[in-house]
């Protein structure tokens, strides 16, 4: 209903315009005089542009105004055409007396007419063309709408893909970083267990980070796994439990797994 009301106003406006067009010498008067101000924003715009016109440029401006009106009229016609087309979608209801009378003649709802019931089930549809686009080419306006729709859809999809991509990239980045951190930790633990000196002075942390970044590509999950397995096999140590087990059996029994995720 709300939609309807909107259309009503626009059409009312048009009706007024038509009266002007038919009627009188409105062209020779200033457009504001013959066209009382209307709520439409477009109207006020045109009014403004016309208000600033100088008498010299009157003719050119007048053409603009006509052009503008023509465009507006076209837009309204498109709106009306769409409305008409939408209405042609709704079939005649079963409550209609014509429906009942045809049924009385032996019509089965949903079927077609004719000796062998070979007729059309639906009336020939309306096709409204308001352009001079050739056969095989769509109405440029429809085409534009379709293109815009397709573009919007594409954009939406792209964004979604981008978001997903971004998410997964972040996740894998985080994972990679974890691998590096764990590798470092495991390496330190191994060094300790092998009674090597810990060579990680606090000072060089920044440096190390840089190194880490550089190394990032080199240190893979496999490297991590290798070192973890070495810790486990040789020292019965699990990095994630943070504990050196008494025996291999104890390790297997108490440690939930080799992975960080298992813990």
């Amino acid at each position, binding site marked *: 209903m709300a939609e309807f009301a909107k259309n009503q106003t626009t059409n009312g406006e048009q*009706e007024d315009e038509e009266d002007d067009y038919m009627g009188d010498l409105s062209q020779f008067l200033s457009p504001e005089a013959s066209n009382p101000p209307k709520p439409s924003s477009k109207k006020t715009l045109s009014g403004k542009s016309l208000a600033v016109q100088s008498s010299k440029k009157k003719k050119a401006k007048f053409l603009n105004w006509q052009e503008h009106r023509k465009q507006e009229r076209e837009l309204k016609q498109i709106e009306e055409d769409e409305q008409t087309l939408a209405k042609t979608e709704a079939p005649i209801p079963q409550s209609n*007396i014509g429906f009942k009378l045809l049924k*009385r003649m032996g019509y089965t709802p949903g079927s077609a007419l004719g000796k062998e019931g070979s007729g*059309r089930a639906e009336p020939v549809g309306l096709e409204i063309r308001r352009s001079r686009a050739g056969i*095989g080419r769509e109405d440029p306006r429809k085409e534009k709408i379709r293109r815009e729709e397709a573009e919007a859809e594409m954009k939406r999809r792209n964004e979604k893909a981008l978001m997903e991509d971004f998410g997964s990239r972040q996740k894998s980045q985080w994972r990679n970083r974890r691998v590096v951190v764990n590798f470092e930790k495991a390496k330190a633990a191994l060094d300790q267990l092998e009674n090597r000196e810990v060579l990680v002075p606090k000072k060089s942390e920044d440096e190390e980070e840089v190194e880490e970044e550089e190394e990032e590509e080199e240190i893979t999950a496999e490297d991590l796994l290798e070192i973890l397995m070495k810790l486990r096999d040789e020292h019965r140590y699990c990095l994630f439990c943070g504990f050196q087990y008494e025996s291999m059996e104890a390790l297997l029994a108490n440690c939930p797994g080799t992975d960080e995720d298992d813990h």
Partner: protein
Amino acid sequence: MGTERKRKLSLFDVVDETSVPGTKPKLNGGFGGAAPMAGNSLVNTWTGKAYSQRYFEILEKRKALPVWQQKDEFLQVLKNNQTLILVGETGSGKTTQIPQFVLEAVDNEYPDKRRKWMVACTQPRRVAAMSVSRRVAEEMDVAIGEEVGYSIRFEDCSSARTVLKYLTDGMLLREAMTDPLLERYKVIILDEAHERTLATDVLFGLLKEVLKNRPDLKLVVMSATLEAEKFQGYFLGAPLMKVPGRLHPVEIFYTQEPERDYLEAAIRTVVQIHMCEPLGDILVFLTGEEEIEDACRKITKEIGNLGDQVGPVKAVPLYSTLPPAMQQKIFEPAPPPLNEGGPAGRKIVVSTNIAETSLTIDGIVYVIDPGFAKQKVYNPRVRVESLLVSPISKASAHQRSGRAGRTQPGKCFRLYTEKSFNNDLQPQTYPEILRSNLANTVLTLKKLGIDDLVHFDFMDPPAPETLMRALEVLNYLGALDDEGNLTKLGEIMSEFPLDPQMSKMLVVSPEFNCSNEILSISAMLSGCFICMPIEHVHRWVSLHMMFSNWSMYKQVLVHALRDEIVAVSQYYLMKQMVSSGLYASADLPEAQKAADEAKARFGHIDGDHLTLLNVYHAYKQNNEDPSWCYENFINHRALKSADNVRQQLVRIMARFNLKLCSTDFNSRDYYINIRKAMLAGYFMQVAHMERTGHYLTVKDNQVVHLHPSNCLDHKPEWVIYNEYVLTSRNFIRTVTDIRGEWIVDIAPHYYDLENFPQCEAKRVLERLYKKREKEREENRNRK
């Protein structure tokens, strides 16, 4: 036999004596050579008079027609079959010759002249029925209206002597209403069957039944195109005969890519052909008057710009509403070279699809086909008739290309790709029965006693919803009861060759004491010339604005209106012409004055129907004076024909004892009664103005606009309209102001609020019903 022959010879001698001596040997020779052929006797068997010289001259030409090659074959097939299908391209001579062959055959079979029989040949168009019958009468050397006649709506030009009658398919259908087995005919020929008009399609189904009941009746179906197999299937394997046309091969070209603008592309192609192709005229198919006039101007300009390196061109428009004098221009020859020895000129005909089948132009070698045509489609869901540009069918495209090969091998330029031709064009144009409002057809079928419309043997059965709408209209008008049976009222209505709404209005008009006036209005509305779109006239006039003063304008206007009366619209037209600045300013006051006068004289502020009535009255008051008509922009011929229509309608009224009466002209009720009577017929065609100032049709709530040709000086709350068309906008045309109170009094069964969509009109009606209820109560209390 011997004496017979002798008598003929003596008669020939008589003719010979009266004729110029110099022609004698020629006539003798011509006759001698053709002597063994049938139909070459010297006495006209129909009139008993000697044949004129002209008869023999025409006969020679007739014998050169392709169809004469197969005369014997045709007569043989006709003899052995009840139904036969004859396919022949235009130019084969079938429309004029086949009926004469048939006549000869029937005459041989039923030599007893006292027994009355006829041969009918149907035509989809009134003009064709008239012109072809005239031609055939000339060929048979008889007077039109005697042995050969025609019958079209509101005009019967035949007599008791008539043996061959050309008639519109609609007229044959009407004859079936009084003569269900069509017993007056021995042979019925359905010509131009490929056009698949509404009436032809109904006749197909009807005749199939009649043929079963009348073994002595024969049917010949004549068609021009490829649908012959479909006809054969429908008529259960009737034999098919092909008559070759005179067609030369046509080379077909497609574009590589779909065109962005088909009008531009068409003009470009014209220029290319003119520059590069050898001599020969061009035929361009476009969709409407405006486009065609536009194209003609652009072509002339573009080729003019090329200078004298190329030959001159003459661009000629062609569309059905063009005045006949202008239409004749297409037959003029191409312009001569600008200077001796210079490049030759070319004629370029820019036409709607009337040049596709119904009109033949010789000399066309190139055809440009953008692939579009205006098509009329009725939609039962919103009850609108649209007249919009749509793609043509493959069959149409084929027909169009054939136009290039009439005189020599030709070329056809299709402004679409071959892929589009294969994928985007439907094989056949939808026959009219699928695109029309069937209210009138259903009433006719009902009257013909066909009760089972669901299983009726239509060649192309219409959509169920189209029949539903028709049944609904007839039920609300009271022509069908709730069981679907024809009522007494329906019987009477079916006798009028008019739309059911109009018949209803006529039948009930005595109750409103205004049948005389309703008759005049109906007569004025029935001539299609009256309802012709004003846009066309306006456009036509504006395009020929080379004149600069009022009297010249007037001449052109009258010329433009030669076949259409547009008195209703002249006020609007003039006003628009003045305001759009097409006038030299010096003429403004005079034009304005004339416009005001015209309005004061005929215009009725309450509606177009009433304006039509005023025009008719003024015409009668001025004793049907042609010069008065000229002075007032009124087409005399059109009004004369409206007057004729009125007389026919009066006769039908008399047959059913419908009183002819009028309200006193000075009474306040004079126009009110007329408007009420119109509402009684047109209560389903009402629009209501919403508070926002625009109109919605009742029940369907379609947004519509008053057609600019209307005569109203205000915007009434309620209007009835004669038609609702979708063209450049949603228009209601020929409107009259009515009162909401009348609606609840006259058509409460249609305005049943239980079955009414929520809208402003409904709320208004609710108030009106309550008011009526209250009034009734008050009346009761008073008693």
